[in-house]
């Protein structure tokens, strides 16, 4: 909603129309998986009392992340700048910050290359 509000305020170019709009929104939903599940895993590791932690549950949350990035590796992201790719960028940045040991770049050269360029923005 914040994204949509700012996009409307700023002239409206991040959502697209027609088929492109649904692609962008679908990718944004996928990108949300780079932040929601790992945040839950982080809370499990740093907030939940140690005796109550559930390793299988945390592993499952992180599998959502790796599956999402594997899916992104099959995409041609090019120079897209839309709600989908912005969500991807924010999610990958969060993973670098909180889950550096995940080493998401390993085995995903296309996403790694795309992110290296995207992370240089704004130009």
């Amino acid at each position: 909603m914040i994204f949509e509000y700012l996009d409307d305020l700023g002239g409206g170019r991040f959502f697209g129309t027609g088929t492109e709009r649904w692609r962008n929104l679908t990718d944004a939903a996928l990108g949300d998986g780079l932040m929601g599940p790992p945040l839950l895993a982080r809370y499990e590791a740093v907030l939940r009392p140690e005796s109550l932690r559930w390793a299988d549950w945390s592993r499952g949350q992180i599998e959502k992340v790796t599956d999402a990035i594997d899916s992104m590796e099959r995409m041609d992201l090019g120079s897209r700048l839309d709600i989908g790719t912005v969500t991807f960028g924010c999610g990958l940045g969060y993973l670098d910050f909180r889950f550096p040991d995940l080493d998401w770049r390993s085995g995903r050269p296309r996403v790694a290359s795309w992110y290296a360029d995207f992370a240089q923005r704004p130009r």
Partner: protein
Amino acid sequence: MVVAHELGLADRIERLPSAAGPVQRDATIRQHNPIGQVPTFFTDDGPSCTTAE
């Protein structure tokens, strides 16, 4: 903020301190967003936007 920067709106946005968490829930956020999560965005004269999308 990525979108704000891309659209040249960043200098119109004031950042406020907060300490969101699922157990110790931040009362200042909850004034604007009952869910108590960040990001929470509100305008001086318009809607409060309570989810990032």
